[in-house]
C-alpha cells in the first residue's frame, strides 16, 4: 500500500511562493493497494491534480470523505474522472439523520455554486453512508468512526496485508480528553491504535489552539501526544493552517521533533509518498 499526498492544507487553499514546499492545496490523499486499487481520502482542491494524472482506463474510484466542509469537497467538481463516461465513482461520507449524502453534496454541486448539476456529469456516481466499523473496498479493509470535529465527521483506517494507515484529517480529541479516563474514551483512538502511519490534524501552534478551543483542530503538541498514546509507527502532521508559511512550517517541524521522544514525525508535503 502506498499513499501520496495531493493536498495538505486546511480550511482554505493557500497557493503562493510562501507555501510552495508544503503545498497550498486542501486535503486529498491517494491510497493505492498492491494491485493498484485506488482509494481517495477527501476531495479538497488537491484532487484536481490527482484527477489529471490518473489512468484513463480506471473504471472504479472510491472517494472517502471525512466530512463535507468545503476544504474537503471543493475539488470534487474539478476531478477529471467525473466527466468520463463509464467511470464508476463511489463516494463515501458521514451519515446524516436528515439528508442523504447525495443531497448534501448537491448543495455544492449545483448552481449557483457550481455550473453543472450532478445528474449531468458523465461518470456513474454512487453515494454511500460510510458504515460504522469495518467494510471492504477491493483489497482494503476500511474502518470508519466518528471523531470530534464540528458537524458529523469521520476518521478512517485503511488496512491491507497487515499494514494500516489511519487518517484523521480534522480532529480535536483534546476537547474531550481527560488523563484519568482510559484510551477508549479518547476520540479516534480506536482508529489510530498501532497504525503504521497516522496522518493527523496539526493545524495550530499551542498558543493558537488555546484561542480556538472547539474549532475542531489540534495543535502540534496535541497531535504528538495523541500519536504517542496510540502507539503509531509514524505521525504525519496534516491540515496545515492556511496562513502558515514554509519557513514557519520548518520551525514547527523542528519543534515537533523536539517533542517527539522517539516517535517518527514529519509534516505532510504535497507530493510526499508514504510507503506502508
Amino acid at each position, binding site marked *: 500500500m502506498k499513499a501520496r499526498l495531493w493536498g495538505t492544507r486546511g480550511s482554505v487553499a493557500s497557493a503562493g511562493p510562501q507555501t510552495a514546499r508544503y503545498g497550498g492545496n486542501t486535503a486529498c490523499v491517494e491510497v493505492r493497494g498492491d494491485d493498484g486499487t485506488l482509494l481517495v481520502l477527501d476531495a479538497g482542491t488537491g484532487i484536481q491534480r490527482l484527477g489529471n494524472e490518473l489512468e484513463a482506463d480506471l473504471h472504479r474510484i472510491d472517494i472517502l470523505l471525512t466530512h463535507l466542509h468545503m476544504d474537503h469537497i471543493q475539488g470534487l467538481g474539478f476531478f477529471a474522472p467525473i466527466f468520463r463516461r463509464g467511470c464508476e465513482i463511489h463516494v463515501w461520507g*458521514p*451519515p*446524516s*439523520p436528515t439528508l442523504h449524502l447525495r443531497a448534501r453534496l448537491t448543495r455544492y454541486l449545483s448552481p449557483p455554486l457550481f455550473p453543472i448539476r450532478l445528474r449531468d456529469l458523465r461518470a456513474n456516481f454512487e453515494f454511500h*453512508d460510510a458504515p*460504522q466499523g*469495518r467494510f471492504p473496498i477491493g483489497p482494503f*479493509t476500511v*474502518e470508519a*468512526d*466518528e*471523531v*470530534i470535529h464540528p458537524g*458529523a465527521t469521520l476518521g478512517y*483506517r485503511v*488496512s491491507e496485508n497487515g499494514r*494500516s494507515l489511519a487518517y484523521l484529517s480534522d480532529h480535536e480529541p483534546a*476537547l*474531550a480528553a*481527560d488523563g*484519568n*479516563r482510559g*484510551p*477508549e*474514551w*479518547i*476520540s479516534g*483512538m*480506536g*482508529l489510530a*491504535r*498501532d*497504525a503504521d502511519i497516522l496522518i493527523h490534524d496539526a493545524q495550530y501552534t499551542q498558543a493558537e489552539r488555546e484561542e480556538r478551543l472547539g474549532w475542531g483542530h489540534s495543535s502540534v503538541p496535541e497531535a504528538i501526544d495523541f500519536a504517542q498514546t496510540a502507539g503509531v509507527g509514524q505521525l504525519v502532521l496534516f491540515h496545515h493552517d492556511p496562513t502558515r508559511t514554509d519557513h514557519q512550517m520548518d520551525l514547527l517541524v523542528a519543534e515537533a521533533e523536539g517533542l517527539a521522544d522517539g516517535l517518527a514525525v514529519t509534516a505532510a508535503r504535497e507530493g510526499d509518498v508514504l510507503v506502508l
Partner: protein
Amino acid sequence: MTDLPQQPIEMILLRQLAEHLAIPMWVIDAEGDLVFFNEAAEPTLGVRADDVDQMPYETWTTSFAPRDLEGNAIAGDDLPSVKALREQKPQHDSLQITGADGVARQIVITAFPLTGGHGDVMGSVTMFWESDER
C-alpha cells in the same frame, strides 16, 4: 485492524458535557449497564464517581435500593432510565433511593433515550434532582 474498545463519539462528548454540568447525571449504555455518573451526582448517590467503575445492570439497579414514594421496591426494568432505553421514550418520575452512604433520599428523575447519528440505540441519559415533589 485494531480491536481496542472505543466509546462512541456521542458517549465521549456526553461524558465531557456531563462533567461540566452542575446537574446530576448518569448514563447507561445499550445493555443497560451504568457507564458513568458525574461529579454533581456524587452527593445524592453517596459515592465518588472516581471510586466506582462501570456498573452492570444487575448491580446499579439494586445497589441504590430504588423504591416508589410508598416504599415499594422498583424492579430494574421499571426504572425510568431503563424504560427510556427499552421503550425509546422520555420518562419522568419521582422515587426514593438509598445512597452508598446509607442515606435515603427522594429524587425526581428525567430520563431520555440516547440515539446515535446512525439511528442506533446507544443507551439513555438520566438527569435527577433531590426533591420532595410528588
